[in-house]
């Protein structure tokens, strides 16, 4: 299944966004605070509603600080046109010849009550499977406080769609959390977005698969980390999982390092190469994969994303990197620019001249990262 279209209304800093997706790898570019992560968060939000453990509409909203935090500040028309301040997410998907549409609109009732489902529509091809609210639930807040998407009893006819959303992967690895996860201890965020439990993720993988993936990573790292002999999975005396790097030295036994001694860049690269080898039956969302990495490595990432995009599922990437977008094999349909404005942000495909330039072999980064005048940074 692939996402074909994402439409947002009043979602975070987008008053309105309408994105048609044709590529397997999607790059979101734009200035700081324009809303690149917020755009990805719409997909994470659907995942958080749909996931079988700890999911649900109310939890997904609460984890984000409540309805007022996810609803666009620029939402207009309060009290005028009915529904104009609703928050809406619509995703259209295709699965071979089949098409799916999921539409969810949420409205705030009063400050005291929970946000409720204003509309929930599920379409499979031309057939409407769900079109809520139904007459019998209009006055029942408890029913309207939950989506059908999150309820196994209600989503039977579109279980595959619900499962698809629940399998969306988002990782924005923060090396310090991996290294000091133990010492920071305590609170682990749901779905571990920052990789705090990344070692556990590796530990939970079947032995054979784990060995095969680590072998590939160590082969890839061989070119980059001098003297690297092998990358191994070990469990310490306390039962904690670790990644161990073995180096050749002049001494008879190889030197060893655990993940907490690796540089941020090495750790991020290992995590990225691991993620790219996982099976993705739903989109993989990556935030600024270029962070802490050498430009030469970054320059080569698109090829790896492309493989995942072809083999498994779509890859959505936020980036600021010229190096990442230097690959002339990136089509203009892969790129969306987010433009901030006083009325909220807009998301747009490349303009006509940008598209022409990319089609003529100018590296996409040289084109789309050159929007607007060079601004002056001063303090």
């Amino acid at each position, binding site marked *: 299944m692939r996402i074909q279209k994402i439409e947002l209304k009043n979602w975070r800093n987008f008053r309105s966004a309408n994105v048609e997706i044709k590529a397997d790898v999607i790059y979101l570019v734009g200035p700081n605070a324009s809303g690149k992560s917020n755009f990805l968060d719409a997909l994470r939000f659907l995942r958080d509603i749909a996931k079988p453990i700890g999911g649900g509409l109310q939890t997904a909203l609460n984890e984000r600080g409540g309805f007022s935090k996810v609803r666009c500040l620029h939402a207009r028309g309060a009290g005028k046109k009915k529904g104009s301040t609703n928050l809406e997410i619509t995703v259209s998907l295709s699965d071979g010849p089949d098409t799916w549409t999921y539409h969810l609109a949420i409205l705030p009732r009063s400050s005291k009550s929970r946000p409720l489902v204003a509309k929930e529509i599920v379409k499979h091809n031309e057939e409407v499977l769900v079109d809520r609210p139904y007459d019998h639930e209009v006055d029942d807040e408890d029913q309207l406080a939950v989506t059908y998407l999150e309820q196994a009893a209600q989503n039977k006819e579109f279980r595959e769609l619900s499962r698809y959303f629940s399998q969306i992967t988002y990782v924005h690895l923060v090396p310090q959390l991996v290294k000091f996860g133990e010492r920071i201890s305590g609170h682990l965020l749901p779905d571990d977005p920052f990789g705090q439990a990344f070692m556990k993720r590796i530990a939970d993988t079947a032995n054979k698969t784990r060995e095969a993936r680590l072998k590939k990573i160590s082969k890839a790292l061989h070119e980059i980390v001098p003297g690297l002999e092998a990358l191994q999975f070990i469990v310490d005396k306390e039962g904690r999982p670790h990644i161990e790097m073995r180096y050749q030295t002049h001494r008879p036994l190889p030197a060893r390092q655990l993940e907490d001694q690796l540089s941020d860049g090495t750790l991020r690269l290992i995590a990225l190469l691991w993620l790219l080898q996982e099976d993705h039956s739903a989109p993989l969302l990556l935030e600024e994969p270029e962070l802490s990495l050498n430009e030469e490595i970054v320059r080569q990432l698109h090829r790896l994303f492309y493989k995942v995009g072809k083999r498994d599922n779509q890859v959505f990437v936020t980036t600021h990197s*010229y190096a990442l977008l230097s690959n002339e094999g990136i089509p203009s349909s892969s790129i969306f620019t987010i433009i901030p404005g006083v009325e909220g942000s807009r998301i747009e495909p490349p303009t006509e001249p940008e598209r022409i*330039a990319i089609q003529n*072999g*100018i*590296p996409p980064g*040289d*084109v789309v990262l*050159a929007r607007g005048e060079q601004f*002056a940074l*001063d303090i």
Partner: protein
Amino acid sequence: MRWIYFSGEDEVSEALARRCVERVLPELTFQSIRPRQGGIDGVIEKFPSYLDTSRNYPFFVMIDLDRKECPPSARADLLSKHNITDLPRQFILSIVKRESEAWLLGDSDGIAEYLGIPNQGITGNPEELSDPKGAIIQLAKTSPRYRDEICPDAKGDAKVGPGFNFRLTEFVKRQWNIETAAERCPTLMRTLERLNNLKD
């Protein structure tokens, strides 16, 4: 809407190019292309792609002549490197003698005022200078405002100061008088004429 593409060596040339286009072709939208690899190499490497792109909308490229002999031979060198025989009329290749900084010096009153220095001693023929960057740095040495930013730190080995591009770009955007500069810089005058010819 119509556009004009631009690619150059650095942010100062882009700022100059924007002023040129605004002056002559204000109806066109400026579409910049910024090579990841800055400097002349970035421009040269992608030259054939720029040429292809110019079939749709005009393309303006600005490079420095630097130490090369004269603009026509530098142009011929560049074209022969890519086996290009001639450039279409929509493609404007501007080779600045010797560096784009010469165009800034063309507005001597403006640059003197910006730096807060007297304007005596600023040449009336900046394109004859062998090292316009160096000339600006010399002038800035007496600038009470921007000396530390424009001139290199005596302790280091950098060629320019940390705010060289920043300050020069600011000057071009805010104060640079393009008419005065064009009178003193033949390559600027020719560039404006050729941009103007795009109107036909």
